[in-house]
């Protein structure tokens, strides 16, 4: 095989590519050609791809070496988190390996053969389900967002121009979730009509717990074991988690080991000292499950820049825990005037909704803002309205407007409206 046209014909990436192609042509077991993070992907690109056989198929796909989306790890410790690179995504689905994480005791390693879920308390038949038991029930699949209720807090309290969509709102992601409706499990175990709440308990090192109104179980909760067509990723609760459409991330307990039905809430640490929202007037709101209506422009945003005047497509996502997004408006003048954006259909309930709007940039400074309205009529407040209603010190549920200043040179900075 003749080498031609590479920048460096002796690079490691180039050698692997050639080895893979050669083995493929010979019908032998095939090595996979891919580029390591530290290898320039351009080195393995021929001048003319029509003059060289490409790599053969492989057992496991990988991204193009030119694409390197990464989560942003905020704290590399068991109680840390990582954020989805919203500015790198299109459409509504988050690739599973880019789904945000927020853990309280790290990611437990669980053998699916040894996994079990105990359902007990106010039930006729306390029952242990294996993973295969759960998978044997009639299943359901739904597209829903999942968002940590702390998402957006840092951007409100410490806004900086050099914040990306990932840093502002990267604690939200959307997946197709597959599992068994929790209502079916409650029917199977004979849940008492007197039950009003249930405790969901994790098998992580925090043995994390939340109390959930049992009506959510009868309505649309599921025990999810699938995400985007495959088993849950370990960081998202493998092998099974609670999924509560539209409700704050923390209540969607991962690595679910136990459900206990009760006539009252348990007042665990995660629903009292955490995940409660101080309010003006000396109160703190607890059990604030619903995620408020939100939106964020994901392009054009920091760290990207507009490479010249003319037509650009403003793109972003909107979502609400209270049903469907009804409308997204875009302002290019910092909120003085608004026009409707186009929503990508079908609009799913409690799911990221992609919006788009064409914009002819004249090269002058502009401030882009998106404002979503949901089917209940709720819309996003300004920063001032938000702080008046909830206080600068409130700790969760930050749905105030987000904006982006476009400068004359096309560079972009985050701003609050």
């Amino acid at each position, binding site marked *: 095989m003749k080498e031609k046209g590479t920048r460096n014909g002796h690079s490691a990436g180039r050698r692997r590519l050639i080895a893979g192609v050669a083995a493929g042509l010979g019908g032998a077991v095939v090595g996979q050609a891919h580029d390591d993070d530290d290898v320039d992907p351009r080195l393995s690109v021929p001048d003319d791809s029509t003059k060289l056989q490409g790599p053969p198929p492989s057992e496991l796909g990988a991204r193009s070496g030119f694409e390197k989306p990464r989560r942003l790890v905020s704290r590399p410790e068991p109680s840390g988190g990582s954020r989805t690179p919203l500015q790198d995504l299109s459409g509504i689905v988050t690739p599973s390996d880019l789904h945000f994480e927020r853990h309280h005791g790290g990611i437990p390693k669980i053998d699916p053969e040894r996994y079990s879920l105990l359902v007990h308390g106010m039930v006729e038949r306390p029952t242990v389900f294996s993973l295969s038991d759960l998978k044997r029930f009639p299943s359901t699949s739904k597209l829903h967002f999942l968002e940590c209720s702390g998402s957006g807090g840092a951007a409100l309290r410490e806004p900086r121009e050099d914040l990306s969509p990932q840093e502002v709102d990267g604690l939200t992601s959307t997946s197709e979730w597959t599992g068994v409706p929790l209502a079916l499990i409650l029917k199977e175990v004979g849940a008492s009509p007197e039950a009003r709440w249930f405790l969901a308990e994790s098998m992580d090192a925090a043995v994390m717990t939340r109390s959930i109104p049992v*009506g959510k179980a009868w309505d649309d909760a599921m025990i999810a074991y699938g995400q985007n067509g495959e088993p849950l990723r370990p960081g998202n609760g493998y092998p099974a988690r609670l999924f509560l459409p539209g409700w704050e991330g923390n209540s969607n307990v991962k690595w679910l080991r*136990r459900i206990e039905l009760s006539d009252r809430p348990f007042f665990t640490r995660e629903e009292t*000292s955490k995940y409660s929202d101080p309010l003006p007037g000396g109160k703190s709101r607890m059990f*604030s499950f619903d995620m408020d209506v939100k939106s964020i422009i994901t392009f054009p945003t920091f760290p990207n820049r507009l490479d010249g005047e003319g037509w650009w497509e403003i793109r972003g996502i909107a979502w609400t825990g209270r049903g469907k997004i009804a409308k997204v408006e875009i302002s290019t003048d910092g909120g003085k005037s608004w026009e409707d954006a186009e929503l990508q259909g079908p609009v799913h309930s409690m799911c990221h909704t992609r919006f788009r709007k064409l914009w002819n940039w004249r090269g002058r400074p502009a401030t882009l803002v998106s404002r979503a309205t949901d089917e209940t009529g709720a819309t996003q407040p300004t920063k001032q309205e938000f702080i008046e209603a909830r206080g600068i*010190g409130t700790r969760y549920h930050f749905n105030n407007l987000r904006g982006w200043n476009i400068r004359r040179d096309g560079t972009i900075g985050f701003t609050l409206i």
Partner: protein
Amino acid sequence: MHGQWRRFLDTPELRAAALERMKDLPDFGFGREATAEEVAAIDIDIMPDGTGLPVGSGSVTRGQQLYASQCVQCHGADGRGGDYEALVGREPAEGFPFAESVDHVVTVGNYWPYATTLYDYIHRAMPQAVPGSLPPDDVYSLVAYVLYLNDIVPENTVLDASSLPAIEMPARDRFVYDDREGGTELR
């Protein structure tokens, strides 16, 4: 209709609707009956009325010794925080200004509504290096010491399953149920 999570406490209606939806499904009978022993082994939650609290007791004095060996590394010598969060602090003396200001640290003393939650959490998740390793007497002792540091109980306190749920936490009456309902009114 979405946006009123409290409707999920209106269980009879939602239960009836779900059973109606599933009325043509068979009883599958998957899973197996849990034994009382299995349930007892992992049913570790503690409720504000004391439900779930085990036999045992612990004193402030013993808690102080345990704190020095088990907790001080993360939470600091005086409980006011180190690498991890502060447990101690009654400031500010008046009011509950956590929404209006970002200057106040939330602690067991000024924010936690129930003392039983402290037992539940220490028992299930602490200390971080060996979570869930402390026997009941140790947990009662640590709860007593942390409450003592917060000026909630006196130095001679001994806690057990009957005295712990009786403790009234300073922030108890600050907590309210979510009243957001969607719609045009921002709450």
